[in-house]
């Protein structure tokens, strides 16, 4: 990966030098100036409108009793306090995820760590663990963990793969030439990493960090079990205690503002660093750094992370399965539920990926206000708690699409609204990895934008898009609050069954569902871990 505007240049061509060049490049990498073709713009706008539905609902509900009332809720001292708590938790979890994600990615991709491939796969598997299961496992073992520490721990351990995955992919993809040059100039490995490698990882890490941040802001399961009051939890309790949707909606609007701020901040990081690369054809595998005497420490670190993030919750589940008196294996019911879960998650992943594709391509290839707005719109629903998104879809469906209400399509749509950013981020990253020079060549040969998209961009980005679909599939499987409200009456997913069983207080009875959920979600997670861009 070389900086910004050399993107469209064949490798070996003199890199553009100088700040001025970089500045112009910042707002205008490859494809700039060109308006996104209609074939992208129209579906992208549809996706964005779709993602903005909850905002429309929130506006209606928040202003229901007049702006004064909504403002009173928002301007309350407690709102500020919750804001601080939410942001504090987000900051700590993001920082911890960056440390875990980047260190594991570097160790598994760039060093002679024994079993690097296996460690890389193991580092993605925690994705399969729902936050509420992780939190429950920790609470069962360490009741004192409740509170900020416990919430931060549980959330970090389930979400660091969001950083690990893109950073590992970026490490595999970047041209080692710069690092070799730095090394030949006498820089040590650490200095080379900090000065040369890390800056190039910034877009990938920032993208992952954004997903982690939005995940933390919207999480209800872990903070609820850990009894740590955040914005999302306050919104939830507000619905539950008062049946008054106005305060909940007003607080949700604050979450949306936070999301937009975060997305804008991430876009700035991206703008400064740039992400184009010289093209897959030129990248050689980097020389693997011998760990030498530090090898045991590296192994210990990887082992410790995998132990707390994976072995521990699985072990706890195993214990419940073995020891619980209420554990009964209703295999037929379990199979039905698992099948329904797979179906609905697959449909969710398919729709989300289809909607994300045009947005992701525009975000990667086109700059300017319009592209930025589209991308930000796609993120709007992501930080909202599932119950808010679900109620907004209840609202719209009951009024404008009644036949769809409490039918599968609506649930699938909810997944798309909730998880569009996951798929958009993957698509954007994948398109960025595809050298734009090939598109330019195709265009110069007279190919229409559509053919360029179909014959060049999409095939090159396909593995990354598929990886995004797999990730979306995993998060759809784990989703709980929206599924509870929107599933067809009588339908269950593994997550809702798990919830029902724990609701009756028998975690041992819930353990088979939790175990099945983790095992099924582990398959796409495993594939993600093996996926090499």
């Amino acid at each position, binding site marked *: 990966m070389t900086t910004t505007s050399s993107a469209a240049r064949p490798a070996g061509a003199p890199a553009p030098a100088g700040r001025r060049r970089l500045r112009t490049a910042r707002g205008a990498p490859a494809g700039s100036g060109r308006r996104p073709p209609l074939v992208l713009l129209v579906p992208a706008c549809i996706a964005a409108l779709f993602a903005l539905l909850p905002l429309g609902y929130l506006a209606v509900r928040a202003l229901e009793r007049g702006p004064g009332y909504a403002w009173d809720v928002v301007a309350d001292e407690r709102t500020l306090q919750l804001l601080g708590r939410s942001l504090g938790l987000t900051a700590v979890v993001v920082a911890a995820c960056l440390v875990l994600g980047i260190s594991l990615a570097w160790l598994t991709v760039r060093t002679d760590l024994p079993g690097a491939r296996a460690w890389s796969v193991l580092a993605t598997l925690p994705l399969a663990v729902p936050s509420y299961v992780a939190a429950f496992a920790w609470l069962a073992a360490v009741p004192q963990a409740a509170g900020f520490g416990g919430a931060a721990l549980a959330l970090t351990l389930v979400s660091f793969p969001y950083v690990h995955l893109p950073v590992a992919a970026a490490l595999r993809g970047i041209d080692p030439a710069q690092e070799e040059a730095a090394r030949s100039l006498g820089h040590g490995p650490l200095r080379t990493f900090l000065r040369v490698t890390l800056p190039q990882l910034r877009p990938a890490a920032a993208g992952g960090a954004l997903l982690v941040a939005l995940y933390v802001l919207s999480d209800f399961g872990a903070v609820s079990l850990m009894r740590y009051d955040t914005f999302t939890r306050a919104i939830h309790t507000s619905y539950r*205690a008062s049946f008054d949707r106005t305060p909940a909606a007003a607080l949700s609007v604050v979450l949306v503002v936070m999301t937009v701020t975060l997305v804008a901040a991430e876009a700035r990081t991206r703008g400064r660093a740039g992400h184009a690369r010289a093209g897959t054809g030129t990248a050689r595998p980097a020389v693997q750094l011998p760990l030498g005497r530090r090898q045991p420490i590296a192994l210990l670190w990887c082992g410790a992370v995998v132990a707390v993030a994976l072995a521990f919750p699985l072990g706890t589940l195993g214990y419940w399965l073995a020891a619980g008196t209420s554990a009964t294996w209703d295999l037929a019911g379990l199979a039905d539920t698992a099948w329904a879960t797979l179906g609905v998650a697959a449909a969710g992943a398919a729709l989300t990926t289809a909607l994300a594709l045009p947005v992701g391509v525009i975000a990667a290839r086109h700059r300017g206000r319009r592209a930025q707005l589209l991308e930000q719109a796609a993120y709007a629903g992501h930080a909202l708690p599932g119950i808010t998104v679900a109620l907004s879809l209840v609202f719209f469906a009951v009024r404008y699409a009644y036949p769809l209400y409490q039918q599968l399509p609506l649930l699938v749509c909810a997944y798309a609204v909730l998880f569009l950013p996951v798929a958009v981020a993957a698509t954007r990253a994948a398109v960025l990895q595809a050298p734009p020079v090939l598109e330019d060549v195709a265009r110069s040969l007279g190919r229409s934008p559509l053919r360029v998209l179909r014959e060049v961009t999409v095939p090159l980005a396909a593995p990354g898009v598929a990886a995004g679909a797999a990730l979306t599939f995993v998060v759809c499987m784990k989703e709980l*609050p929206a599924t509870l409200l929107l599933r067809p009456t009588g339908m269950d997913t593994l997550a809702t069954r798990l919830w*029902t069983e724990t609701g009756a207080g028998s975690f041992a009875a819930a353990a088979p569902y939790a175990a099945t959920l983790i095992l099924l979600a582990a398959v796409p997670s495993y594939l993600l871990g093996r996926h090499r861009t």
Partner: protein
Amino acid sequence: MRRPLAGRVTALLAAGLLLPALAACGSDDDKSGSEGGDTGLVIYSGRNEKLVKPILDKLEKAVGAEVQVRYGDSAELAAQILEEGDGTKAGLFLSQDAGALGALSKEGMLAKLPQSSLDEVDSAYRGGAGDWVGLSGRVRVIAYNPDKVTEDDVPDSVHDVVKPEWKDKVGFAPTNASFQAFVTGMRVLEGDEATRKWLEDLKANGAKTYAHNLATLDAVEAGEVSLGLVNHYYWYERVAEKGEDKVGAKLHFLPGKDPGALINVAGVGILKDSGQTQTAQKAVDYLLSKEAQTYFADKTKEYPLAAGVTSTVEGLPPFDSLQSPDIDLGKLESLQETLAMLQDVGLV
């Protein structure tokens, strides 16, 4: 040049959108029966599937119509019904507490029940507007660990658990709906100021918080705390599961109309706008029948409220012996203020 790809993209998008829609058409068919006439019934159940599925299966036979049950959390289902408005799919709302029914009643979403149904239940355990009725009662009690404290020393009032002698020895579940209903009851009975003071004292006294009643009971059994503020039936369920000698906790029923001895109910209301009122009425009658009431007594260990059924659960004090505070359960709907208070004090 343009058309093939545009076509393909459109086809792809359409397929993505249509596939689930087609699936929906399939499921629309089996639902048409419930929409057409007043034959089918959709129940939104805020009570846990494990607890009520057996009795709802019997209810289906009793009402002679297809019954579909949507399980969820009482409060979230109430919020959903409010959001659905007159388009609601629910014919009957089975709630875990009076507050959620009160909220629907306040918005005028519930149909008035016939006097004959209402009269089955003592007026203290039904809605003031005659649009919901309690099915089963649960009473707040203090669970204690006999290794840590003798029954004589267990406080007779929740006001005593904030005394210094119980410092760091009390467990409770602040996010639990029944704890919050109890705090609301205390506010109604003793006023906001006294309740706030009690909550502050409770916190200052180092009372330990748990996720739910069962976790609180676990903590009492494990000796982590000496006393726990819980609902009565958890203990009886556990005794039924393990045997009394294996349960390391005991219950103390509070005398003297203490706010800590509040009786709350699980109840049921009929949705006005669902077009299922006739079937729903049959369902209410069934739930108030001897068979259903006996089920609540035997299986969920709650107090049956109708059909002259008395609990057969061994060791459970008779319902009329309970010295609960006199309170209008409809007033428990003012949960919002309770929540604000709990937040102010820093307990939730």
